[in-house]
């Protein structure tokens, strides 16, 4: 690709503008980390400095970890995201395989149902799902946080698109080798569709790690809370007075995804913007 070369002043201008916008984008992150390592006195003595005169990080972070069960929140988050993703793949991949590679009566109807489900925003379903959770007695448990998401219309759609690009000969050959249909899904299709699985995995984990709406409805018990709900509870307890520990907690909640993003940027961008269909 030929990029039109710009004279030096234009290049400098490009960097100048982009550095300014980048600084604005980063400001909340920088301010968050800065306050998380400052003692209360310095936080309330308004100052521009990023680095504190007295490093108070250890106090703030240990307070965040001990006064709120922050590690517990994060472990909850990991567990909930892992369960949701595993169930989503287990449910969606076979259905997507059937839609992509098998000929059967009702296939178009099934696909239409998937597309309609793709249209429905989850928040609209919250009230009936809350009632359902109540009826089967799982509100305020891990199951309540997981069950609305065990099937993902977007997952079915994405896997189907990807499975369709795998040649039929592969499927025929696998049948001749004696694979069962489910065996073909797990041992042939999933490994071959790994890019789609990873993209979907990132989309799923990021959305559920970050989600506040449903957990707010589904659980009250502090020991079950995922990170966003936990940090909100922490904020309300602290009455927003102690910015140091509160922002230390925020930093810890944001850190895992940011770190993963910086390590695997391309995958994240693909997973999250591919998810835009939803």
């Amino acid at each position, binding site marked *: 690709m030929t990029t039109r070369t710009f004279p030096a002043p234009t290049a400098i201008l490009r960097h100048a503008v982009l550095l300014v916008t980048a600084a604005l984008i*980063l400001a909340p992150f920088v301010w968050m980390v800065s306050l998380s390592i400052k003692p209360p006195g310095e936080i309330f003595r308004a100052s521009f400095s990023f680095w504190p005169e007295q490093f108070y990080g250890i106090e703030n972070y240990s307070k965040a970890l001990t006064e709120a069960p922050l590690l517990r929140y994060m472990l909850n988050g990991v567990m909930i995201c892992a369960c949701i993703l595993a169930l989503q793949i287990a*449910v969606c991949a076979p259905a997507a395989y059937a839609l992509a590679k098998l000929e059967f009566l009702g296939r178009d109807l099934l696909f239409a149902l998937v597309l309609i*489900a793709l249209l429905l925003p989850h928040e*609209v379903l919250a009230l009936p799902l809350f009632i359902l959770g109540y009826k089967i007695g799982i509100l305020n448990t891990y199951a309540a946080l997981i069950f609305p998401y065990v099937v993902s219309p977007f997952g079915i759609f994405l896997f189907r698109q990807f499975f369709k690009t795998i040649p039929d000969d592969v499927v025929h050959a696998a049948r001749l080798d004696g694979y069962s249909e489910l065996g073909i899904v797990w041992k042939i299709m999933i490994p071959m569709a790994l890019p789609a699985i990873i993209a979907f995995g990132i989309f799923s984990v990021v959305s559920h790690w970050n989600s506040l709406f449903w957990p707010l409805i589904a659980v009250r018990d502090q020991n079950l809370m995922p990170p966003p709900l936990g940090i909100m509870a922490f904020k309300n307890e602290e009455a927003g007075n102690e910015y140091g520990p509160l922002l230390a907690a925020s930093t810890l909640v*944001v850190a895992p995804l940011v770190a993963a993003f910086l390590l695997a940027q391309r995958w994240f961008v693909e997973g999250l913007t591919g998810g835009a269909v939803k």
Partner: protein
Amino acid sequence: MSLPNRKRETRQRGVSPAPASSRAAGLSEMITAWTLAGPALALLIMLFFLPVLAVFVIALTDWQFGASTLSFVGTANFEEVFADRGFRASLFNTVAYVAIVVPGTIILGLAVALLIESGKSFRAFYRAIHFLPYMATLTAMAIAWEALLHPTIGLVNQTLAGLGLPTANWLRDENTVLPVLAAIGIWQNLGFAMVLFLAGLKSIPQDLYHAAEVDGADLWLDRLRTVTLPMLGPVFMFVFIVVALKAFETFDTVQVLTQGGPGHASEMLLFTLYRESFQYLRTGYGASVAVVFLIIVVALTLIQARVMDKKVHYQ
């Protein structure tokens, strides 16, 4: 990632795998297929279709959470919802919020994408930084924003005061709260728009620029107007709808930062839905709000589907 292509859905029939498509083979394939798709179908019905029907039923009856009886009340719930000044404020705020966030996100996202694409150095670096807010946990970042916007110790007011400009109590003033939430919305979604525009820019054939130059489009601005923007038509439409949907679904910042206040100044649809359904337990009211919300979202998505099918190019 080629957006406009995504919808170029292959219409081909799936493979008929059985060597001899005898009736027996067809039947066994059908059984296999429904066995594989059965769990997904059952869960789709239980977790999507029955709930969405239930929302409509609840919205049209006087059922209250926990009650054992219900009777049909027609549109009474909707009349109550629309007669409520709080709800009207919420609807108006949501529309105003979307009307700020969507153009803000598109213009800034496009500007950043054009700037990044106009040179070769540090592309990945700038892209990563601008994309960061899109995946950062918004609940936690909202707390960071609150600290940034704090009336006395926040960086925003300190900077403004330092420059001799007027300051404000951003989240407690009914004139500033909604624009400030919208600014946070733009901050969050800008990177998403940027990534899609970058992909769109990459797919514009260089020949078109050469042709435009031959035709006398010497200035960068001319080429932008005659080639870049028209060729980005489909991406614009796509970004427009997706960002609009995301903006309509804003909840976290309202819940964490303002609780809809002061007064109703920053109340938005999903927050109203949550508060009425789950805090005040006004089931019928909550369900009616959900129906209104659903209609808006589905309408937007259908417009998107139509437009993407036609793959619009402006001009």
